[in-house]
């Protein structure tokens, strides 16, 4: 049996979120092109050994987000939106940046400080010359 996705028990996130993320990633990397027929709910459930109800929930939310479409009696397909791939890649990046912003807020940093730090890390600068707020971050 081929395996479509792999679900991890050690991952603390609920299984339906893990399934959603892996489907999004397969689309983002181009494995599953727009219009591609994705596995049926029951086939995917059997393949990853996860409850049918869990896969159903993941598909329902992916449908709501406009990432897949389900045609009654025909199956589920990757939505044929031209910019879907870019949108998903953008979405993944936004997710990481949002959590960085959240940490910045908790530490009381300004947007320009976070921006500067992002640029430094991008250029491969080691975390040495951090200011007062930076030290707090080290202690976390």
């Amino acid at each position: 049996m081929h395996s479509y996705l792999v679900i991890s028990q050690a991952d603390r996130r609920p299984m339906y979120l893990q399934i959603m993320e892996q489907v999004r990633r397969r689309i983002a990397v181009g494995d599953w092109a727009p219009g591609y027929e994705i596995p049926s709910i029951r086939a995917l459930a059997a393949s990853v050994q996860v409850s049918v109800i869990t896969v159903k929930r993941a598909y329902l939310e992916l449908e709501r987000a406009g990432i897949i479409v389900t045609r009654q009696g025909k199956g589920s397909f990757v939505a044929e939106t031209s910019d879907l791939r870019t949108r998903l890649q953008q979405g993944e990046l936004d997710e990481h940046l949002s959590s960085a912003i959240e940490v910045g807020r908790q530490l009381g940093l300004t947007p320009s400080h976070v921006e500067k730090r992002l640029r430094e890390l991008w250029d491969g600068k080691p975390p040495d010359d951090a200011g007062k707020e930076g030290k707090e971050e080290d202690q976390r």
Partner: protein
Amino acid sequence: MTERVIEVAGVEKAYRFFRLGSVSLELEAGQILGFVGPNGAGKSTLMRILMGMIRHDRGTVRVLGHPIPEEQASAKRDIGFVSEDMRLHGNVTLAWYMKFVASIYAGWDAAYADVLLRRFNLHADQDIKALSHGERVKATLLLALARRPRLLLLDEPTTGLDPVARHEILTELMAVVEDERRAILFSSHNTQDVEQISDQITFIDRGRIIDSSDKETFIDRWRRLHLDVPAGVTLPALKDVVETRTSGRMAIITTRAYSPGTESIYERAGAHVREVQRMTLEEIFVANVMSNRKEQAA
């Protein structure tokens, strides 16, 4: 409409030292129901009632549309029942059993039986007495699965098995419900297996069903909230909170009906919500049993 393969309503059964009931339970075609309870909770008793092996005192039982125990013979043609104490006799081979079962049930699928032999790493020519515990469990499951019954009733199918054998069995169970006409009810105290493959989950304790819901609802609604409670702030008493633990300014609340609104209720009361945690099915089960026993005692 989806067909109900199990319908249990108001079932009671009294013994000298144990009372089951009143139990109501439903299972639809295409679903897996995980039946979770401590030892002696009444899981096996209920399964035997479903099989017509024990006659209930009160209530109604229908399995695959047949009233039980009246039409148990017709129902059993399409039920595969596996339980711990269904011992296979030692002095014959697994092949002998396969021939025997095939002679009774028209639905026996010899090709699938061969596939299962390979998947479970069993040898048809081996004497039953030479099998390990795990091999014995897999052999009884093979005999039930190869009949391709519409309903599987499995009493503790994964208990005492190593992780590899458990994985092999869960894989076969998931393959069964690729066919949406079929259904499985399995009991277990391994909550990890139940959490992984069940669509519906029912908790039983001391002969009573204490909670029953689809798995996603359980996992979504049971949460632990970690709160900072400043001096002078009294936490509101919410009806669905099953446990509150406090220590200094910290409080840990376990709720069975979480929604984002729950957080704002505590924030409005002056507490600060530090973290909202999801719970594993095991944690939900234990919290559920403990709070229910407390209620019963009160």
